[in-house]
């Protein structure tokens, strides 16, 4: 589908997944779970306009400048492929600092401790988050039209 309908798919999303084996291992895993659940929903809702990339995993203790330049690399490639909207989704607050350096839009969401939640609440909460996220995308699209 992507190849045929490329003209309609102008948005690409790259989830950013921190990986850590140190003390913050739990936190990193939580973030990854949360963001990947959200991405699945997002992809389902906006299938026809958005390309969801497999996440970008990086070591939490890696050099930050190096990370930023890696991401910028992705960015240049994606933009040259004709995507007019590039989004990053993450719960890792470190990216906030580098937001200004990135061309694409950084969507930072506070990660929620899903593992302690009942299935029902979990779905409810995810749904709320997804709704907000959807709005954000729609608004972005409208602004650029």
């Amino acid at each position, binding site marked *: 589908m992507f190849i045929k309908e490329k003209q309609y798919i102008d948005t690409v999303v790259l989830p950013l997944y921190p990986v850590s084996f140190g003390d913050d291992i739990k936190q990193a895993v939580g973030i990854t779970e949360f963001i990947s659940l959200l991405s699945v929903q997002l992809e*389902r*809702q*906006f299938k*026809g306009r958005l390309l969801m990339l497999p996440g970008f995993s990086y070591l939490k203790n890696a050099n930050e400048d190096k990370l930023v330049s890696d991401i910028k690399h992705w960015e240049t490639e994606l933009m040259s492929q004709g995507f007019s909207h590039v989004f990053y989704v993450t719960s890792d607050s470190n990216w906030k600092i580098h937001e200004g350096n990135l061309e694409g839009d950084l969507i930072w969401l506070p990660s929620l401790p899903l593992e302690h939640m009942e299935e029902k609440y979990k*779905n409810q909460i995810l749904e709320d988050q997804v709704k907000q996220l*959807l709005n954000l995308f729609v608004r972005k699209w409208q602004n650029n039209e």
Partner: protein
Amino acid sequence: MSKNRVSRRQFLNYTLTGVGGFMAAGMLMPMVRFAVDPVLQHKGESDFIPTKQKISEITEVPTRVDYTFEQVDAWYTSEVTGSAWVYRDENGEVVALSPVCKHLGCVVDWNSDESNPEHFYCPCHGGLYTKDGTNVPGTPPIAPLDVFPIQDVDGYLHLGKAEPRKGA
């Protein structure tokens, strides 16, 4: 001694074939079951998925009804959620429309676009459908929304597999 006395050779032959036969059957039966089971299973259960929506509570306003079912992807079973837009038409008949846009598959929303009230609206490329699911010409979709066959099971709405309709 009687004539039909079983000789040692015959006795061994009988017992060995008997035991061998059992063993072969023991091995073959599961194989046959494996081969036949999926076919049998599919016929056994109905393809309708239950929802929590009471039929009596459905109004003329399209409402989102969610359902979950189990989907098997190779070895991986997952819970999949889906939804339908459900309402009563002018004749009081319950209608359940698939929310999947017929253009490229985004999820459509009821009444969410201010300039097009009382329509199903697709945020991706501005696809529009009237309340009965017919695509509005001039917008990207080229077919009406799929329709779920419905069943009333003890007052609750059950949904079948969404089916396409003819284009407008």
